Every structure is written in C-alpha cells, then in structure tokens.
C-alpha cells in the first residue's frame, strides 16, 4: 500500500515554544504513544504535521466525533459485485504500513470506541480485527498520537483512566505575546503592528475565560482575523467576524468583547 499522499511534502510553519520537538523525537525513537494536551487552536495539529514532516513519516489524521464507531477506525466489510470485501479503516492503514496515526480531539469519541487503541499502546503493538479474525502487528514505523483538550470540563467527556495512562503527554498553551505576534505575522502575513494589536485583543478575550467564556480566542482565531485584515477588512469588523461571533452567542459577552476590541483599536 502506498501512503505517499499521506506524506507532508513541504515544511509546515511551526515555531517551537519549549522542548516539545526533542521530546517528541525521543518518544518516537521508542515509538511511545504521545498525547498532545492544550486548548483549541493553540497549534497541536500544526505541531504533529511538523513532526511528521521532520521525521519523514506519513501522517493519517482522524477527526474524532461522537458518532464515531470502532469500525470507522479499524475498517469494515463492504459489498461489491463479487460479494463482501474488507476495507481497512484509517487506523488499520497506519498500523499496517507504518504511519503516524493522529486521533484529533479524542475525547469527542465515545469511550468504548477508543478502547480499540489499547493493544496498540502497550508492548503488544497489535490491532485485533475481530470481524476479520485477524491480528495486525504494527509496522515498526507506526506511532499513535492523540490530542486532548482539557478545557472540556464535562464529566462525560473525559478519557478513561486506563486510556490516559498509556501516553506520554506534551502540554501546549497559547504562546506568549512576542511569539504569538511572530506566529500571526508569519501565518497571516500582516504587519507587526497589526499582529501586536491582535495579540492584545486575544489576551482580552482570554481574560474572560471562566467569566462568561469557556475559552478565550485561540491563536488560530487571531490568525484568521489577521488574514481578513490582510484582505483589507477593517480591524473591528475582521475581529467581529473571526473572534466575537464564533466564540459566544451570549449577547452580553459579545457586547463586552466588541467593546474591548473597540478599546484596543
């Protein structure tokens, strides 16, 4: 099987913030499963893309969701003209042919679904395909990475303890003001002045975390606002569209956010 189109051809922009790059490389050296923790839009997905490029491995990303079943991960029988045919799921693909498998926002999947990864995350490194009566041994290059947003404080959305304890974890958070400004400049192609302003606005919204907002504006949102500004949208309107409206439906919070953006401009 050719996983070429899962390979990342060009170096993705990633600005290392801490020791995460050498740490991940060390983990990969012994194919340890890795958990990336951090709020939404802080660069977890970008980091894993960068690492896949750096390590030269194909990357298979699975966006987890509530209705995801085990068959969505491991594969299922399908019908064609000659009868039933087995199709590998994305996880099985990665296991067989040696890719980094990235389960994005893994808490979104139901807990009984995520149990299928357990045999892959200990020294067995195997994936049983019950329906096919097959035990797939993992390719030597295979590695499992999951991302996990601890911002969900809901009781039902948490990883099982037995799942959690199989991973090493890298903690991500929003970069500091200088670094975030550099990231916005590079990603959105805006001037340093605009990027600084966006960072300031972002910090205002993060001040409201726990005071009406579940989460402040992410770096990704700020980059999006920057891109809108880059296409000649006024700062206020760009922030309205990229930050305020997506982040909350509460009219009071929207108003307060708009007003603090006005105050910054």
């Amino acid at each position: 099987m050719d996983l070429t189109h899962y390979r990342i051809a060009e170096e993705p922009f990633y600005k290392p913030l801490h020791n995460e790059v050498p740490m991940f490389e060390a983990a990969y050296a012994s194919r340890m499963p890795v958990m990336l923790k951090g709020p939404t839009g802080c660069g977890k997905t970008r980091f894993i893309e960068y690492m896949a490029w750096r390590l030269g491995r194909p990357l298979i990303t699975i966006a987890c969701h509530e209705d995801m079943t085990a068959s969505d991960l491991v594969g299922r029988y399908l019908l064609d003209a000659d009868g039933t045919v087995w199709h590998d799921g994305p996880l099985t693909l990665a296991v067989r042919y040696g890719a980094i498998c990235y389960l994005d926002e893994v808490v979104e999947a139901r807990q009984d679904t995520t149990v299928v990864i357990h045999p892959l995350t200990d020294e067995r490194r195997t994936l049983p395909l019950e329906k096919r009566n097959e035990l797939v041994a993992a390719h030597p290059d295979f590695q499992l990475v999951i991302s996990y947003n601890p911002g969900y404080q809901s009781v039902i959305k948490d990883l099982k303890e037995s799942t959690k304890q199989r991973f090493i974890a890298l903690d991500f958070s929003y970069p500091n003001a200088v670094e975030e400004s550099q990231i916005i400049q590079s990603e959105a192609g805006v001037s340093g002045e605009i990027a600084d302003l966006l960072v300031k606005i972002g910090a205002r919204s993060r001040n409201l975390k726990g005071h009406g907002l579940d989460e402040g504006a992410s770096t990704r949102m700020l980059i999006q606002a920057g891109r809108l500004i880059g296409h000649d949208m006024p700062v206020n309107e760009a922030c309205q569209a990229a930050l305020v409206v997506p982040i909350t439906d509460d009219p009071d919070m929207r108003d307060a956010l708009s007003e603090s953006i006005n105050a910054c401009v």
Partner: protein
Amino acid sequence: MSDGKHGHLQDLLAEANRASVIDAATWAALKRVFSQREFGQWTDGLARLLARKIGYSAILDFARASVQAARRYGPAAGLRLEASARAVQDKAGERAAAAMFAATAHACRHLAEAEDFAAWLATMEELAEGAPESVAVLCDHLGYVLQRLDAREFHSWVHAGIRGAGRDPAARLEYFDLKDQSAIRAFEQASSDVLFSAVQARAAALVGALWRFHPIMRTLAVTPGRPAPRRSAFDGAVLWVPEAYAGRHGSDAVLHYKAAIAHIGAHAAYGGGRFPRGKLKPIQIALVSLIEDARVENLAIADYPGLRRLWLRYHTAQPGKALAAELLMLRLSRALVDPDYLDDDPWITKARAMFFDSRDNWTDPEISRTIGGLLGNDLGQMRIQFNAKTYVVEPSYRDDNSGLWEIDDEPPPAESEAADVMLNAAQIEQKESDEPKSRHETSPEAPPANVASRASPLPEDEGFPIARHPEWDYRHGGLRPEWTTLNEYNARPAPAAAGSALLQRHEAALVKIRNLVKSAKISRPQWRSRQMQGERLDLDACIRTAIDIERGGSPDPRHYQTRVLKNRDLSVFVLLDISESTRDRIGRTNRTIISVARTATALLAEAMAGLGDPFAICGFCSDGKDDVRFYRVKDFVESFDASALQRLAGLRGHLSTRLGAALRQAGAELSPQRTHRRLVLVISDGEPSDIDVADSDYLTEDARHAVRSLAHQGIDVLCIGLQSEDDAAMRRVFGRRGFVLIDRAEALAEKLPFIYLRMTT
C-alpha cells in the same frame, strides 16, 4: 339657545359674567390668537363650561390657558383644551378641571411640540378616568414632573402609577403626590428606559476583559427622602451604580454605563491607595480627584486607545468667559483627556502644561495630589467661589470620588434598602451557583432539603425576595422593567401521613404509570436497519442487494445496521397554581381542585422520577405585583422523597394568579438546565388575575408575552387546564397546542402522567 325672552336674558347675563371674570387684556389676547371663526368656537366652548357651573376663577385660568396654548402650539391646541377640560370634569370633578387650567402654563413651558401638548391632554383625560382623585394633586407638581419627563415618558409614568396602585385611591394619591417611593423610582425609570440591571453583565465582562477586574456590583436604588443617586461610587472591588441615569436613553444609556464602569475599572487598574485628606480644602479635594480621574484615564487610553472615544462622548464642555469653579473644572476635565480641545484660559493652560509635563510620572498617583493642590490654591487666589455641598462630579459617567479618599465619618456611599441588598445578594448567589449541585455542596452535612428550608429560619409568612421580573403592558406595547417581585416562601410540610396518603389512594394508577414508564424508558441501544453507514451489515438488505445484482437491477446502497441510543433528554419545571379559586369544590364532589392537583402532581412526579427526567415543583400565587409567591416543593437537584411529598401535601390555596411573573421565574430557573428540551408545565384552573389589576386582558397578555419569550429561549410551555369556564383566555396565553383542558378535574390524577408521557415522547 336664544329662543324666547328668557333665554335671551340668560345669554346677556352669561355674557356679562364672562366679561366681568375675564379681564380686558385677556379678551384682547384671545381675539389676537384666534381668527373670528375660531373665536366664535372658543366662546361656544366657554358657554359650555359656564353651563356646567364651573367656578369663575377657573374661567379666567381657562381663558389664559387657551391664550398660552394657542400662542405656543396654534389655535387648534387652544380650542382642544375645552373638550379635554370637560372630559376631566366629567370624571374627576370641577376642582380637577380648574387645576388643569392652572397647570397648562407648565405644560406650555416644557412641551415643545403641538402633538406633545395633545398627548399631554390625552394623558390627563386618562388620568381623570383611572385616578380621578389624583388629577388636582398631580397638577400641583406638574412643573416639576414635566421638567423631567417628556410627553411620552409622562404618559408612561402616569400609567405606571395607575397600574401600580391598582384600585387603592389612597395609594394613587401618594404616588401622584410624589410621596410614594415608587413614584420617584418610576420617575427615574421613565426618564431613562435602560436600567443598570440590563447592562450589568456586559459592563462587568468589559472590565473583566480589559483589566481582569471582576468587581461586585450593587445598584444604587432611589431611597425615599433622599435625592436620587446621580453618580457611581466604588470601594475597592465593590461598585455602586445608579439604577438609572436620568435623561439617558437607549444605546446612549448603555454606553454611558460602560463609560462609568470603564472609568472605575481604570481607577482599579491604575489607581493607588486612598489619599489622606490631611488639611486639604474642599476645592483641593475636588481638584485632586479631577486630576486623578484624568491620570487613570490617560493611562487607560495609553493601553486602550479606543476608550478615549467612549469617554469623550460625555465631555461636551466648551471654552467660555464664565469663571464659576464648576464650569472651569468641567473644561479642565475635557482639556486633560481631549488633545484636540482648545481653551486659552490661563488657569486651564497652566493645568494642562503641568499635567502633561509630568507625563513620565503618570504612574505615580502622588502627582495628582501635587497638581490638584496647586490648582486649588490658584482658584482660591482667583477668588473663585466653590460650593462643596452642591458640587457634583462631571461628566456624569465619572464616580463620586469617595473611593479615592481615606474614609472619615461620612456615611457610606449607599445605604440601599435592606430588601435591595437582599435581592442583590440573592442575584449574586444565583450567579455563583451556575451548576445546580453547588447549592447543596455548600452544606454537605445538611440533609437534602429544599433551598428555602435551608435558608431558614424564615418566619412562616415572610417571603425572601429571589428575583424581579418585568411585566408586559399591552396597552403601552412595552415591558415595565423590574415590575414584579418574586418572593420565596417556606412550603409548610404536611404531616408525614398526609404525604404518603397522596400516593396510596392511587395504587392502581401507580402500577399503570410504572409499567408505562418502563416501556417508555429506552435506555438500551436499538439497532436501526437499512442505513448508509453502520457498525454491521444488515443481512436482509444484503440479500436483497445480492438479488438485485443477480437480476441486473440497481441495488439499494443501504445495507448497514447502526446502533442508536434513544435517551430522554428533558427537564421539567412544574408550576402549580395555588390561588384562592383552587379551593373550589369540583362539581358536586367534596374534593377541591387543589387536592386533585396535589394528587395529580404527586403521580406525575412519580412518573418523572421513574423516567429520570430532572424536574422541579413549585406552587405559586400572588398578592399584588410586589408579592408573587413561590412555594418550593422540590428543586432540580433533590430527589422526590417523602419530605417533598409532605411539602406538596401541605400546599394550600390562597391569593391570586399572576401567571406571567411565575412563568418568567420558572423559565429563569429552568434555563441553566443542560438538557436538550426544557419544559414548563403549568397546572392551573383559570385565567390570570391579581388584586391590583382591574383590566382582565392585562395579565392575560402579560402571560402570553412570557410564554412567547420562553419559546424564544427554547423553553416549551404546556398548560393543563382544570375546570376552566373561559378557556379562550388560556388558549390565548398558551396557544392551541400548548393547552390541554381536562373537563373532568377529578380525572386529572389519572390522566396527567399519561398526558405528560404523550407530550414528551
């Protein structure tokens, strides 16, 4: 009129009287303002008034008022006066009409347009109808009132008075004589349609976002016998904000609140400790405060340039020649925050130079003391008078500066009414307990009892205010803010035997309900066949597909089965009408409506508890708008146990039904529930009514409005009507689909759980 000698003689006499009462100058003025034809109409009107034996002194007032009105608003207004006067006299008597003539001068002075004057006359007629005894009294205060309210606000204020006092003439007199606190409150509210409570959340979030400043906010309410609070105040993290800023409307009022809160936020973020008063003179204290205001604002603007726009809206001072201290300070305030403001007054120029020269030291509050002290000395040397007693900080968004100075023996900035403080405390508590469980976690050792009983000891017949709600006035087409007060009363538990008896008598129904619940409770996942995607193949579909392929037909691509979890996701707030009318007996039986309703609710609760739907039960009744009572039987977080049954059995029917207020409170308590569907279930025996409302449509329309606004929030409302004679009104409130009438009330107990299941599955 003039047939026969006798009539003619009367005409002559009347003419003579008119002529004698009205002085020559007024006659001349009348002839000037009216054309000949209009003058004829006016004298006809005069004749009509005279025929009603109106007092002669009133006639002169009438003539003068006609002249004033005609001069100011045109002849039509002058002629209109007479018709209104007759209407007022019919309803409220001669004295009222006479007082109205005398008060017309005030109306002419304060109302700008002819239509305002017409609206004023119409309002006076309505007042004569709704509160005849109060017309004369109000006319005495008319100048004061119209100085503060325009014609529209006046109308609203008068209506608030008529409605608020209901059928009690003495209460109405108090209101219109401005002796009643609510008159002044309504006054402030009418003169500003935005109350602080409407803006509080977003203003708090604004300073939270800018400076991580999360203050405790208190409303400065109007207290009788004291001037209305006009400025905000702060003391550390506690803010007092006027309930309304008079004269500020709509978006302007909202911005004004934000400016005020942002200003205090700036004090909190950039201010130092309190200044010692030392030997400073009042003028120096005022000036140090002014410089300190400018200092923190400039620092804030350096961080957030947009704040300058917010604040500058309220700096409207212009250069001038007047050398009053207040005016100079107003100009100085502007000069220090508005770089584009030009003012060549030497004192202001000097102050500006001193302030901006110390730009590098702005972070040090001490410069405010230095500069303010020096400027105060200068003013003293210029012999400019300053009256500390009448001085009010300007512009109006700034606080009263009491928070800047070390406390001396002055009273605290606000001594709000005890009830207000309690209410605020309740609101804060409500906010903090976003997650329902925390209510109970506060006292883990206490047995799970209801909230009211935990808050005990409460005297049995004293409620605890838990919320205020607006009320819809359909005649006005607007919401009256904070119009009703919800009080929570202790639900008195009945003896244990009475509680368990509620269910025991209905064993058969209970068994039926439990069976029904069992079948309705689908917690196991179900397989759904013929799906495009799924976890396993649908064998039947596969065989069909194989056959289709063999036959060369096009196969149906849906050959999977998928598992679906069918969970009920519904929380319910049961609102039980316990008004006086529920004590009526049903038909010829010896059972009362409330006893049937109690049993029905108990069975329903059993069903809901069985289904695992979170639910709360409250009884409600009302005694006027300020006492809408809530008797809490069961809260969402409690289990439906024996003590809840006892409280349910203890509910007694009394007082009236202010349905809208109860619905709003139910909605407010239901909205934090995190279920997919939320339902308010009302069990009521008739249309809303209350002692202070005469108009039967008023509360019906209010309830209808409440139902609609709950629907906007995604909260369903279902009403089970009992033995209602006039269900048209109820259908109007709840809509056709939201209302189920049970014609045989005694059947309610058996029927209710089934209706509930049918409506919710």
